[in-house]
């Protein structure tokens, strides 16, 4: 190739590349330009004449990839779009667990968050730096629909930032009724009874406890769902914990939560693929009777309703047993919430979507996708008459005085980001319970310092 030709080739290459990149950036700018005027027109248009034909506004909705939440979101979106023809909602998923949490935080901090997103309430909500990143929703009309007990877990500095997306959940153990019937077992009310059941199941050659560390977040249930029992022993643990005066490693009742998980591993009750199995495998196993117990939150009942509707009647639920059979109660999770990113370009549409979700229409859409999984925190949302047996097992705890206690993350703003890796290690026998508790205390310290809490 002559020198002139090579020179020309390089020049052409550069010019072409620059042209492409210029066209590329122009293309990404154009839709933004056409959307901006549409966004400001939309609210006026829907007030005046809902049938005005115009460019639909698209808002993005970022959720985790758990099938229950995806199904629920899709149902809600379909119903919402039908009621609001000028607005389209685009769904985007991210992995669940710690990685997903971190993805959400990173996106918020780099200003790349979707318009609307779903995330936990309570301590994890506090980690999102709400005042900086989220839209204030205190004065929205739909807040009147939300039951008051929910509001504190999405409040920062007196302002409310979210709306409940799902039913309240219990954290405990899903169990297969058929195996229990076959072996003549009864629902355990104490840890000793639980372990006896496990022995019996193992002796019968079945998998006693299902664990699914392929989805690391599922490993936390033994520790987190045990909180009812912790606060029975140490009623002010949450306050002391927040003030750096009580720690997991040095509070025997709290340490026991880790020790319980260690006991399960040592007993050899786990399914052989516990290290790689995922949430989907877990619900399959408990529904089809491949395993007896699956420590999980009750929203999973919805996943079973979706994927194994014929076996829904075979699954029951009981709270995580503690030392004392007479003091058996349920650790309760407030539902996840749906939030609006502060720098969204479509705040009005986003608020409309939230209003929809926080209404009876929203509840119905969720129930329509997954069936009932627990009590809703929206006024007027009734549960259908026939609920799955697992939900029927869940409700009585709410009806007894003192039968429930919120999980720690709803009483304290600190939850360490690495808990799920630590519980995987305990549940896999890699680390002892005492070590793990101490490790978690150190992990929590980072979070507390980052939040700027006094006393740390």
């Amino acid at each position, binding site marked *: 190739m002559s020198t002139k030709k090579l020179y020309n080739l390089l020049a052409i290459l550069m010019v072409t590349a620059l042209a492409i990149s210029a066209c590329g950036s122009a293309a990404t700018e154009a839709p933004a330009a056409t959307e901006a005027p549409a966004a400001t027109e939309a609210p006026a248009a829907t007030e005046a004449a809902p049938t005005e034909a115009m460019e639909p506004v698209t808002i993005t909705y970022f959720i985790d990839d758990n099938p229950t939440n995806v199904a629920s979101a899709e149902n809600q979106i379909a119903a919402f779009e039908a009621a609001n023809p000028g607005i389209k909602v685009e769904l985007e998923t991210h992995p669940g667990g710690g*990685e997903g949490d*971190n*993805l959400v*935080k*990173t996106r918020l*901090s780099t200003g790349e968050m979707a318009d609307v997103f779903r995330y936990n309430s309570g301590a994890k909500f506090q*980690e999102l730096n709400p005042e900086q990143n989220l839209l204030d929703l205190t004065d929205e009309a739909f807040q009147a629909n939300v039951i008051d007990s929910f509001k504190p877990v999405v409040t920062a500095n007196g302002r409310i930032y979210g709306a409940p997306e799902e039913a309240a959940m219990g954290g405990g153990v899903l169990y297969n009724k058929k195996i229990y019937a076959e072996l003549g077992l009864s629902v355990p009310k104490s840890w000793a009874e639980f372990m006896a059941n496990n022995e019996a199941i193992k002796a019968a050659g079945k998998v006693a406890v299902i664990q699914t*560390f392929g989805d*690391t977040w599922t490993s936390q249930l033994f520790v987190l769902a045990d909180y009812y029992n912790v606060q029975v022993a140490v009623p002010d643990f949450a306050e002391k914990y927040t003030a750096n005066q009580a720690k997991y490693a040095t509070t025997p009742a709290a340490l026991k939560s880790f020790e319980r998980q260690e006991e399960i591993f040592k007993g050899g009750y786990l399914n*052989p*693929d516990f*290290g*790689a199995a995922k949430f989907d495998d877990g619900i399959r196993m408990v529904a089809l009777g491949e395993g007896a117990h699956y420590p999980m939150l009750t929203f999973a009942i919805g996943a079973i309703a979706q994927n194994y509707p014929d076996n829904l009647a075979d699954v029951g639920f009981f709270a995580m047993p503690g030392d004392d059979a007479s003091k058996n109660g349920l650790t309760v999770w407030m539902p996840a919430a749906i939030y609006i990113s502060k720098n969204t370009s479509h705040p009005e549409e986003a608020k409309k979507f939230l209003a929809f979700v926080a209404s009876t229409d929203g509840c119905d859409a969720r129930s329509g996708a997954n069936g009932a999984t627990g009590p809703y925190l929206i006024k007027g949302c009734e549960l259908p008459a026939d609920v799955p047996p697992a939900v029927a097992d869940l409700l009585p705890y709410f009806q007894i005085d003192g039968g429930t206690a919120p999980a720690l993350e709803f009483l304290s703003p600190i939850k360490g*980001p*690495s808990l799920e*890796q*630590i519980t*995987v*290690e305990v549940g*896999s026998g*890699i*680390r002892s319970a005492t*070590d793990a508790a101490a*490790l978690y205390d*150190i*992990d929590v310290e*980072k979070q507390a*310092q*980052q939040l700027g809490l006094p006393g740390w």
Partner: protein
Amino acid sequence: MRNSQTLAFFMPGSGCKGRAKLTAATKLMSKSSAKHRMATVYPSWFYVPAGIVFAALFLVPTVASLFFSLTRWTLFDATFIGLDNYAQFFREPFLIQGLVNTLIYGVATSGMKVVIGMLLGVLLTSQIFARDYLRSVIFFPVLVSTVGVGITFTALMHPTQGAINETLGFFGIHGPGWLTDPRYALLSVALVDVWKGVGLATVIYIAGIVSIPQEYYEASEIDGANPFQKFWNITLPLARPATVTVIILSLIGGLRSFDLIWSMTRGGPGFTSDVVASVIYKQYQAGFYGLSTAGNVVLILLVAIIIIPLSAFLNKREVNL
């Protein structure tokens, strides 16, 4: 003169001032003026475009990292906390584990690439059938997406459903949990790293071996050397530059490795396959920017402390050879 006019047109800084200088210079037409002309043909400003980009996006951040690693940082405000981040880094068992794992991973991958690469290099420079095909097949994984390779091997290494364990089961061997057993997770990823990177090592070795003059081998054959002796006494020492290159390149890569580990295990199970690079990423994701940067500084120091003396040591001995 024609020369001075042409020169005035092409040389930088030409103009009225330049032209006066040039005419004076060309009048002399001595060797020193010719050399002066040569010197300005390699102008220092050629360094500038690259220099600006490199300084702004590499040097400045690297220097800044030393400062920010001593702070609690939110990207918007930084509170100075001295060496607390480092104290935390070395106090948290899972952060120390990352450091240890990084060393294990770097040494393991580098070692395997050197040995296997050398053996393959010898094999593929011998008179073997379908040599070109073999060279291509071994090199192709180097070019493929690391994330893709990670996902593929994660599926192949599934403890109960993966093809590897199914094949082993066929022979009656109970395959381990490659990525789920804490004892093996890191090494399994290292094996995949070697699978992907050995082609590059092999190619470097091939070039090194091919450059060894045939006379050495012919002479040794006259002396009655067998293949092993030929390898040990001729190939190995004379392929030394290739060995040094492979060691250094693969060690740097191994110590800094992130993509494959992240896409296969995310540092799990638990923290057992975390390396410094994945720790840095996790802390960044969780928003602990100061701690993440401290981890970065630890990685920089780790790589520098290992590579620089090693490189000097290996190269020095080469000169003596």
